[in-house]
């Protein structure tokens, strides 16, 4: 991992931190560190990518509206993130005998690639499957490949679970979206392996659950976690809830210092019953609501409104499905639906095309039947 001095040196050379008083910082958490500003997510969104002097991979963090939020990783950065992901896998119990089917996007977003890198380092056999093809294709591949581990998002696995007829797994890795208790039970019941959830952002991988599953273990040499008050840069009292603010020692190409994750959480002061010495962070959800679409896609309302590009108001509603226990039998017939209603002269097919072309995650979900998108250009009546 990068040392603090290497990280500060990379930050001093980066336009994002031009006005930051980095010179006075001597060690993590010292007074000079605590007086540094924090980095908002919009800072990355509005930033052109500086010209690189060596090879690098460029990934998307969120949609592609306006200035996309891009993250660049050099070869050494990818090695460091891969090393951290190998720590995750080792804590879960993955080793050279594991056969890992990675059911995560392998292009545009880095999650599939860094998962693959981590498992390669542990000597496991990795099958990078991506998400294409749908349940029938995954099913056939699982029968063919006989994986012992599957890595994917909770909603992909929950959708697949009722039909899974591959071999019982040793464990299941989830990432990319909040894991519901109901999903955990469904996945464990059908796939036969314990679920280990991982937490991280495109900008910074953070941590993973151990067998105790009480918070996410993180490695302080890779990620520094602070909990700050959501509306200021002040730390909350130890053990209290606040916004998770991350510093990454993984990426020199795009240094991430005091980055506001937008997630609510707390540091767990007690050591873990599993005996692993690393600290833990607990996550409670998002600070600002975003639509939690299938396959772990989090879509912020302002991104949708910006993509729509209409002058009048926009009303957005998202219904995930039959959530009432009494309506469980309806689940097969209820698909997640996003309703977009706007003021303006734009014809609905044009508005729909704008949304799909601007937000590839949305296009993918709609195209594969994971999400119903209803677009209407009628008057907004409130609510």
């Amino acid at each position: 991992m990068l040392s603090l001095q290497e990280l500060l040196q990379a930050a001093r050379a980066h336009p994002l931190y031009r006005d930051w008083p980095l010179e006075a910082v001597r060690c993590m958490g010292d007074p000079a560190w605590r007086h540094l500003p924090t980095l908002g997510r919009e800072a990355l969104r509005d930033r052109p990518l500086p010209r690189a002097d060596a090879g690098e991979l460029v990934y998307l963090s969120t949609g592609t509206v306006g200035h996309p939020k891009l993250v660049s990783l050099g070869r050494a950065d990818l090695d460091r993130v891969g090393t951290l992901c190998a720590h995750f896998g080792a804590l879960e119990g993955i080793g050279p005998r594991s056969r890992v089917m990675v059911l995560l996007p392998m292009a545009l977003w880095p999650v599939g690639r860094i998962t693959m890198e981590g498992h390669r380092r542990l000597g496991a056999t990795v099958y990078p499957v991506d998400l294409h093809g749908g349940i029938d294709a995954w099913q056939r591949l699982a029968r063919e490949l006989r994986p012992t581990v599957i890595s994917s998002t909770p909603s992909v696995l929950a959708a697949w679970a009722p039909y899974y007829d591959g071999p019982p797994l040793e464990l299941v890795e989830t990432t990319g979206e909040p894991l519901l208790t109901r999903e955990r039970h469904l996945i464990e019941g059908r796939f036969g392996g314990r679920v280990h959830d991982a937490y991280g952002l495109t900008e910074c991988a953070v941590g993973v659950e151990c067998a105790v599953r009480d918070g996410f273990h993180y490695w302080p040499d890779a990620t520094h976690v602070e909990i700050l008050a959501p509306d200021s840069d002040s730390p909350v009292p130890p053990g209290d809830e606040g916004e998770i603010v991350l510093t990454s020692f993984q990426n020199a190409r795009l240094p991430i210092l005091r980055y506001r994750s937008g997630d609510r959480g707390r540091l767990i002061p007690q050591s873990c019953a599993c005996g692993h010495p690393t600290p833990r962070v607990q996550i409670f959800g998002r600070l600002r609501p975003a639509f939690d679409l299938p396959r772990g896609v989090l879509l912020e309302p302002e991104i949708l409104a910006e993509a729509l590009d209409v002058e009048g108001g926009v009303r957005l509603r998202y219904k995930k499905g039959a959530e009432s226990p009494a309506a469980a039998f309806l689940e097969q017939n209820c698909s997640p639906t996003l309703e977009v209603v706007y003021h303006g002269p734009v014809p609905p097919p044009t508005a729909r095309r704008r949304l799909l072309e601007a937000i590839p995650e949305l296009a993918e979900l709609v195209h594969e039947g994971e999400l119903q998108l209803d677009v209407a250009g009628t008057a907004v009546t409130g609510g």
Partner: protein
Amino acid sequence: MRSEISAVSTGPEWRDEILAPRGLNRWDQLSLAGPESLHHRRPSSGATLVYLSSGSTGQPKAMAYTESDWRAGVTHRAECLAAVGVGAGDTAAVVLPFGPWFSGDQICDALVFLGARVLPVGHYGPHLPAAARLMAALDTSVLVTTPSLAHLISREGPRMRLVILLGERCPPPLRRSLQTRFGGARIRSIYAASEAIIGPDFAEDHDVYSWDQDRLHLEVLDATGRVNDRGEGELLVTRRHGEATPLVRYRLGDRVDLSPGSVRFLGRIGHAFTLASGVKVGRRHLEEILDGLDHPVSEARFRVEHRLAGDLLQVHLRSPVHGLRPETIETALLSGNLDLADAVASGHVHLQVWCDRGPAGAKRRLLVEEHPWSL
């Protein structure tokens, strides 16, 4: 299969690296191997990455890599990319399948190795408009893709300095069209299959490729079953590096004209048509699907139309008996070929199937048309 070996076929200078572990002492003692040798193959110990290729056979072939195989592949691809004009400072978009069918990752690693900035796009149809805007926002100068995907991307109007094509032959009319649509871009090709990278094209002749005799040994199996070091026939590939999936006299299924240091691609053997994103469908695979239907088929017509909006595959079957249903045919087609199913699900291929009554015939007719060009 043991074939008669021509007198000149003594193998590469590094032949002992291949012969010694097999307890052989002459190159002509080596057997030929076909795609079936890779079906259901369990990766050897030490393999850390496994990709699949089903291609025209419809049966997944496993291509495994150890870490050292991966590095050797990255270096070879980097040399090919450098030979066609990629260098440090380029920004390259890779619009190719990423896992399980093809190692877009290895191309990305090779580009990073050369010092390029790389945008791994994948080949997902609905992404292409957004991907084209991203390419423009990043001042992308190099596009790495297949000819049919290049055709789809070109409707977004991006300008490129260089377009590098892989996975399919690019016919001259399509090449000229791409050159115009990408604003005068240079169009170059690399000859590579899922199983092996052969080499970059010669700038002046797009269907002729160079190959590195220190990495590969190429031979041809001619129509009489004789293996030769030059001339026309099916390409046999022996790869020097490739611990996890050794390729020795592997029948690639391509028809070529081989010369020392260069190879001219002539087409696929038994090939029926190629769809967007490089999905190749063979006549044998089509025959197998027709054989597997519950109803006799007297005439099967497969028509492919390459369009800017995505390929259209029309399947028209005629049966002398009632009961053949389009959905049965569609299921048989898609479940028998996962990468065809993937191309349909990804929006690159629109499938239309219909069937009707037809006269009984002594022999089933299989008709294939591809418009406006044949890949």
